[in-house]
């Protein structure tokens, strides 16, 4: 109980600082330097979209924020607290960082409802009835309330991804990470997922989104980061970035994806 109070005060004390901060982050995959001296601060309520060619390190960067990928050097802090090493502390911190994956990763042996209930009960120790109520409410909100008793494999990709978003939201995260959330979807299902993300952004959720959906970047992002070869090459407001990219890499990238 005392510990709870202390940590609450601690988080209050830094409540004005950036929610996510990366300083001098470096990472190698063998000889490949996937992240090179990344410095990034994300404010509360900010929506940051990461774009760039494949292999540029944007997914890796996104995954370092909840330490699904470790880093070689530099530091990462969430809400003023540095990411701890693997263990209970890290688990507690991960519960505050929602993650949505390209391949949904819903628990295949659990129903949709159970997917959203499970971590609330196991990690947050929420009473079961309350967790179920929260889950149903969230499923309703992302438009899959009617599917609560089905298994993930019985849902379309778009529905599965919306369940995955509800599952992450159930933990009441401080920040949501989206790692190419629409890349594995059939084209007609992309929008239903983006709509949910847009409404989240509008409600003030802090979001880091790796995506190839330029329309979403334009309309929902506060800031666009363009990555190439493990570096943040350019960062700007979406309007400025899409109308007048400064770097050659960004110009080249945009010309390739916007011409068809």
């Amino acid at each position: 109980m005392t510990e709870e109070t202390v940590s609450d005060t601690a988080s209050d004390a830094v409540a004005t600082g950036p929610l996510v901060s990366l300083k001098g982050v470096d990472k190698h995959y063998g000889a490949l330097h996937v992240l090179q001296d990344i410095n990034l601060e994300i404010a509360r309520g900010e929506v940051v979209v990461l774009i760039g060619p494949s292999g540029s390190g944007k997914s890796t960067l996104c995954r370092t924020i909840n330490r699904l990928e470790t880093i070689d050097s530099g530091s990462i802090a969430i809400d003023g607290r540095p990411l701890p090493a693997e263990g209970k502390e890290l688990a507690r911190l991960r519960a505050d960082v929602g993650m949505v994956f390209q391949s949904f990763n819903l628990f295949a042996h659990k129903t949709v409802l159970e997917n959203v209930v499970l971590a609330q009960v196991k990690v947050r120790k929420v009473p079961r009835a309350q967790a179920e109520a929260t889950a149903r409410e969230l499923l309703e909100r992302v438009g899959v309330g009617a599917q609560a008793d089905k298994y993930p494999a019985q849902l379309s990709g778009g529905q599965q991804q919306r369940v995955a978003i509800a599952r992450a939201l159930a933990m009441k995260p401080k920040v949501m990470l989206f790692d190419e959330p629409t890349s594995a979807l059939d084209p007609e299902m992309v929008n239903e997922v983006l709509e949910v993300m847009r409404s989240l952004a509008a409600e003030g959720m802090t979001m880091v989104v790796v995506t190839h959906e330029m329309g979403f970047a334009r309309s929902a992002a506060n800031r666009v980061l363009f990555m190439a070869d493990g570096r943040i090459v350019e960062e700007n407001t979406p309007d400025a970035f899409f109308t007048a990219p400064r770097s050659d890499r960004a110009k080249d990238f945009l010309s390739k994806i916007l011409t068809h």
Partner: protein
Amino acid sequence: MGILFEDGNFSLFYHGFLQTIELSAISALFALLLGGVLAAFRVSPVPVLRAFGTGWVMVFRNTPLTLLFFGVVFALPRLDVHLSSFTFAVMALSAYTGAFVCEVLRSGINTVPLGQAEAARSLGMGFGQTLGTIVLPQAARSVLPPMSSIFIALPRNSAVAGAFNVPELFSTQKAFDEKGYPIFVTFFWIALAYLLVSFTVSAVFRVLEKQLAVAR
């Protein structure tokens, strides 16, 4: 052929049969527990535990079971560990079978897509929760067929205990031999009894497979 039903032979045979079942069941339980722990060790993020799991599998899977019985029955008393022959037999069989269970579980764990564990971890679940509630339940189904092979082999392997003072099913053969019965008739009944055990084990696993198939 009717030797089983004369001269009080049935009681001897039946006691051997029960002993085999008891020995196999208790060893199966410990092998399952041990194998589970070893498999968790082998996929854990702690290098020491991984090395222990690998070492155990290497030693106990590659040692002939009879040699293992020799080790337990003759070496442990020298270290002042004095237990019944039955307990020694359980130890040897569990240590041996546990190594196989571990490897089967590990192969099952590897069939579960990495994304499942990543999703669990990203929700704040710890290693044990992730393994216990997300990965192992999904591994269970693919693990059942090889697991049934292991637990069909176990009662048959338990025959080795007969040579180490455990009056189990196979060792009743000696008693019948001394009574002068033809060896093939004796073996016929013993083989039939082992067959009964094997069929029962495989039937149980078939039921489990069906049940887990529905739960998806």
